[in-house]
């Protein structure tokens, strides 16, 4: 078998990834997991490479995960916490990028509140850009670690025709969007579910589908959960009430919260996921989040090898260029 060649210098979204790309990430992540577990020797493929984490939005889990992943591969890690107010101070995103480039950044891991911000940077940055979340658009490393986690739990490691339900605030979710591309490529039977106000626009996308594969969009939580193999709950933010999209968090919890009773509709071995951070008691009940079907901690664990794999693959292309 000829090894599939990775050709992406940047990781900006999941829509640009082919299924062989994704499989390569999964294989490489598997190798990295063995390293993390101490079963294999780590090759310091990022030795001397400056990996700069540029986060315009607060994040603990994703930033730390990238930091650990880069460090394990021998990189020099720089963390930059830029507040959204740098715009008002007059320094543009590209100015900031140029400063970081001048101070040695070769791989820029960035999170930004504006959809498409990493695409702008990628067009001007000499090194590689890894999107750690942009606006409502994409969170590619999360979707890939989600797939890695799902594959570990599904018989045969295949998502083909498996029912995967993403439940919650779909409209504002970059995690949902990135997962839609990955799960469609994996051949899953994808359902997205939430209140009508938080599904706006998705009906047309579901019908159009991805790569010719449609997905189901519904506010009927029972229909969505029935027989599901994977249930992924998404965070509900308080701001959604101020925006007139939800009456209250309590009402959301009672109608859409992932409770033990609702989870009973899913397949007996269904796994429960959440990209975090969680509002226990709102989108997910505490006993479900911490219950036997939950793989939420595993998602966090898997973040490191998956990000190691992506950093390695991207760096190989960057240095070959």
């Amino acid at each position, binding site marked *: 078998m000829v090894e599939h060649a990775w050709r992406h210098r940047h990781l900006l979204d999941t829509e640009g990834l082919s299924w062989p790309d994704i499989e390569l990430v999964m294989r490489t992540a598997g190798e990295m997991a063995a390293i993390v577990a101490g079963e294999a020797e780590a090759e310091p493929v990022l030795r001397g490479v400056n990996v700069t984490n540029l986060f315009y939005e607060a994040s603990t889990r994703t930033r730390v995960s990238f930091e650990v992943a880069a460090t394990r591969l021998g990189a020099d890690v720089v963390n930059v916490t830029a507040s959204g107010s740098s*715009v008002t101070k007059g320094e543009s*995103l590209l100015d900031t990028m140029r400063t970081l480039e001048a101070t040695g950044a070769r791989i820029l891991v960035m999170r930004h509140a*504006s959809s*498409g911000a990493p*695409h*702008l940077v*990628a*067009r001007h940055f000499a090194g590689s850009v890894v999107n750690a979340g942009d606006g409502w658009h994409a969170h590619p490393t999360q979707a890939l670690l989600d797939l890695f986690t799902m594959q570990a739990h599904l018989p045969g490691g295949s998502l083909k025709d498996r029912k995967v339900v993403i439940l919650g605030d779909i409209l504002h979710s970059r995690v949902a969007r990135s997962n839609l591309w990955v799960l469609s490529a994996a051949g899953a039977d994808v359902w997205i579910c939430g209140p009508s106000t938080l599904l706006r626009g998705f009906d047309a996308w579901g019908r159009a589908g991805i*790569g010719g594969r449609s997905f189901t969009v519904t506010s009927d939580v029972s229909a969505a959960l029935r027989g599901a193999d994977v249930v992924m709950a998404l965070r509900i933010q308080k701001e959604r009430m101020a925006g007139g999209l939800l009456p209250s968090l309590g009402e959301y919890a009672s109608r859409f919260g992932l409770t033990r009773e609702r989870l009973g509709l899913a397949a007996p071995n269904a796994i429960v996921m959440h990209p975090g951070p969680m509002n226990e008691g709102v989108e997910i009940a505490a006993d479900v989040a911490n219950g036997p079907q939950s793989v939420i901690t595993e998602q966090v664990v898997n973040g490191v090898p998956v990000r190691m794999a992506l950093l390695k693959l991207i760096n190989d292309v960057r240095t070959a260029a």
Partner: protein
Amino acid sequence: MSTARALIDLEISRAWLVDPYARREGPGEIVVRDGVLESVTWLEGREADGIDDRGVVVAPGFIDLHAHFREPGNRAAETIASGLAAAAHGGFTSVCLMPNTSPAMDQPWLLAGLRAAVEASGSPLEVLAYGTATAGRAGEQLAGLGAMADAGVVGFSDDGAPIASATIFRSALAYAGMLGLPVVDHPEEGSLTDGAEANDGLVATVLGLRGWPSVAEAIAVGRDLALLADVVREVPTARLHLTHLSTPESLDLVRRAKAAGLPVTCDITPHHLALTDEWLAGSRRLAWDALDDRGERRDPWLDGVLEAPPYETSLRVNPPLRSPADAAACLAALLDGTADAIATDHAPHTEVDKDVEFGLAANGISGIETALGLVLEAVDAGRLPLAIAVAALTAGPARVLGSRADGRPRGLVEGECANLVVVDRSARWLVTAEGLASNGKNSPLLGRELPGSVLATVADGRLAYEAP
């Protein structure tokens, strides 16, 4: 006028003449002497052999109902001089400038500054100006409408900052109507578009951009028309012009209002006619190529047409580029006369304002030089007759302006001073930043070839632009 250019002599034989004012097109010849259109000869029979509308076309100079030059306030984006050079390059001999400069054109003395800048530019183009409808475009109290009317404005508009209060808007219609001038509205229900980045639809959903829904335009148009119907009962001279309409719903409201006899006109832009929201995702196909035979939108992802990087900020414009079906509705409105004119909404910006995150980028396309090319794309595709396209750039906007702008002769009229454009339809030209005369290089068409090279633009009997 030391800066004024010389009156020209020009002879064009064996061309295709299009004169929408006379509702006539065909083979012909023109002779300009000392800036005066001395003769217009329509060729017939054997003399006309071999002349068709695919070669050199001569038409009356174009009139742009909607352009933004940034002087005073932001000369880096556009000066009066650079804007006029750009307009001439685009084939325009008359431009109507929107008043959202800084300071906004809400005082007659600001118009004097504008006239001085036009004079200093040496451009022979006709510059018409709108005044603001409300003081400082704040939507709270009427600007000095009467004084600005006396100073020669051709209408009033708070373009880009639509008047939210129905009461103030009603007053503006009534007062402007008393002065015999139209109110020009950019229809947008702001409570639906707060923070909007792109047309509310499939592309925005996929790209995670905040949606600007079509209904926000329809609601505003509906309000405006209801208020107009109310006002004209007491002020029969009241007139409303709706600019850059972009949706089937709002165009249909205008269609019905016109049928009911309301004094309303509207325009569409070249970019809403030819481009669509799928360009934001990286597609570069024209609007009519994005629909299937049944009129349904094709899937640009499935079609594999996403060739350019996504989130190109030169595509950020307000109203946003819409769906292929919406673009088709703009075309249909041109064909059935619902849309009176094509207006460019030329909106030059600096790199500082455009080389930023998509959601932070300034709205607008530098479009006065590419307007003809985009319109001719529709003509070349067999979607739009040349005569209608030219009419929408000439007689249509002239009708919208009415008698207030009768300063220049309209049409190919013998014995009058020449205002015309000569286009070679057989020549395609490459849009480049250096090639645009506008200071605003914010065009999504950079690097693309467009049909219809302007050979010469003659305004007031003088050469305003000549192809190198």
